[in-house]
């Protein structure tokens, strides 16, 4: 466990709702999370789990309306960001905490050169003059592996992988202490993804940044993250070091996620005709009608009546490995 003093960001009991025509969508339901200095924390889960909503809440970027942070605290070095004024938040965004968005094709402004877009945040936050900001931006470009001569090029002159490097350069321009990366490589090809992940790892080491890595790819978690939170229907269902969660998987949903992956080793050993994946049956519950009890109960192969009574708390399974399941340790897991 990280020592209290090293904790940069602490989220407590965060709950976020969206008002829609079909009712209130409970996107995030009581999430607790902390991120230590220099640490990479993964948020993993499927579409609609609430991962991006958590990220946007940290930066207070939830569109309101329809979104609303109903409950909780987001402590940044002890200060509650949810209570900060808008000008104060603007100082934090991009300077202390910055974010990389999923789709580099839409995250850049097509009518400005990439250099201007990187320099913009430097000018805003560090009060530099245009010339100095240009120098700083050029340095950042080289940091992400783009020759500084391309400062005056426009986004359409870059390929997808290069655009994502530009997006990362914008995020890094002011040396943030925390970088939130929302599916940073999902839109990219695997060889380009490898380049970007390698670069991010390098930057983490060099700059000592903390990272929140939002992804649906367990392979990326294994590679990048120190600790990981598995998110399902707005709740963390399993939380621990990456090793704990991957090696001693407890929660049936996490087990289901691993079971759904085409196992490369099994494909070597199994006969073709016997191949079958083990998907999780059913679908994510309707976020406007979440049950009061375990959100995963209706898809869970180990469900009992007990599971559908009360809310399930996170329980410690040793050394800070938290699991939200009444029935764990799951029968048959040892096999």
């Amino acid at each position, binding site marked *: 466990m990280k020592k209290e003093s090293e904790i940069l960001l602490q989220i407590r009991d965060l709950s976020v709702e969206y008002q829609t025509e079909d009712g209130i969508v409970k996107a995030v339901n009581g999430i607790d999370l902390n991120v230590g200095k220099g640490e990479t924390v993964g948020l993993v889960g499927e579409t609609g789990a609430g991962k991006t909503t958590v990220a946007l809440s940290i930066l207070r970027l939830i569109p309101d309306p329809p979104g609303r942070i109903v409950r909780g605290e987001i402590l940044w070095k002890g200060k509650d960001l949810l209570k900060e004024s808008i000008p104060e938040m603007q100082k934090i965004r991009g300077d202390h905490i910055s974010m990389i968005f999923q789709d580099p094709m839409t995250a850049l402004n097509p009518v400005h050169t990439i250099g201007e877009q990187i320099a913009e945040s430097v000018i805003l936050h560090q009060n530099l003059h245009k010339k100095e900001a240009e120098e700083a931006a050029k340095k950042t470009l080289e940091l992400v592996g783009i020759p500084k001569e391309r400062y005056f090029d426009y986004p359409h002159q870059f390929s997808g992988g290069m655009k994502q490097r530009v997006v990362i350069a914008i995020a890094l321009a002011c040396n943030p202490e925390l970088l939130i990366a929302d599916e940073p490589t999902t839109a990219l090809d695997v060889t380009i993804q490898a380049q970007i992940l390698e670069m991010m790892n390098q930057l983490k080491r060099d700059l000592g940044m903390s990272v929140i890595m939002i992804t649906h790819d367990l392979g*990326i978690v294994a590679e990048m993250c120190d600790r990981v939170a598995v998110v399902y229907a707005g709740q963390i269902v399993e939380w621990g070091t990456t090793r704990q969660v991957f090696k001693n998987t407890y929660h049936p949903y996490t087990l289901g996620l691993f079971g759904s992956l085409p196992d490369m080793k099994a494909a070597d050993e199994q006969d073709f005709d016997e191949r079958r*994946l083990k998907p999780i049956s059913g679908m994510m519950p309707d976020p406007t009608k979440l049950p009061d009890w375990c959100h995963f109960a209706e898809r869970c192969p180990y469900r009992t009546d007990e599971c559908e009574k009360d809310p399930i708390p996170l329980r410690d399974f040793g050394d800070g490995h938290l699991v939200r399941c009444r029935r764990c340790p799951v029968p048959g897991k040892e096999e």
Partner: protein
Amino acid sequence: MLLEVENLKKYFQTPGGNLHAVDGVSFAIDTGKTLGVVGESGCGKSTLGRVILHLLEPTGGKILFEGEDITNVGKKKLKELQRSMQIIFQDPFSSLNPRMTVSETIREPLLITKLVPKDQIDRKVKEMMDTVGLAQRLVNSYPHELDGGRRQRIGVARALVLNPKFIVCDEPVSALDVSIQAQIINLLLDLQKERGFAYLFITHDLSVVKYVSHDICVMYLGQLVEKSPAAELFRRPAHPYTQALLSAIPVPDVDHRQERILLKGELSSPINPKPGCRFAARCNFAKPECSKKEPELKEIAPGHLVACHFAENKQA
């Protein structure tokens, strides 16, 4: 062989010159087998699938279906052929008509081909919905009311309703979450077992392709750079591009350590490609002769073909 493709080419005219989307691809698929095609965006894998189905006209080469040359066929024959050759598209959000219900979508091919008498169409639609695991209560639902997994099941049902022999699966699970992806992969595997479909499985996801394919082709800038039985390809990738591609997969195992081969740069332009090996500019082993002479596919082990001048030397 059910389907054979010989030296297939598809060029697009662009203001900058000829774009070589598919450039001299040859392979064959047998009934009940899956040929996986992997490659990154822009390598021509989707174009390949569409050319085989005549959704795009080939620029050169030959397509043989059940031994018959179907490269240049008339409209009437083409309609007949399309009953036997179908496609499942990537994005179940844009490949379905938003104004058609589930039953209308599945019914449409039957109405067009008049393959089934009118009074039996309803029964056939129901049967198809059972086959792909769509509940009967959804028969009058519209696509927007359904999630991605169910929409993709409609896409599968629509492709299967004419009882084809060959199906192009163009990234059929890429838009889906892993747990749903697994459901659709199982469905496709089961259907193949029961009905002996041949699949051309196009994807960029290497773990999926290994799981579903008997043979795998690796494409780079319109050409096949390697072709091999699935297990062999992963055990002994011979082309430097394949090696880099395989090493780039993030593996969901904390104890997995592997030397990652990082490639230089990105895909070069498929417009008027330079002579020589198209991968040479990014290759870590490139020698001067690579940019002079184009490598041909050579067999280095039974069924394992590689297009690299130095493939044999690198096989330790």
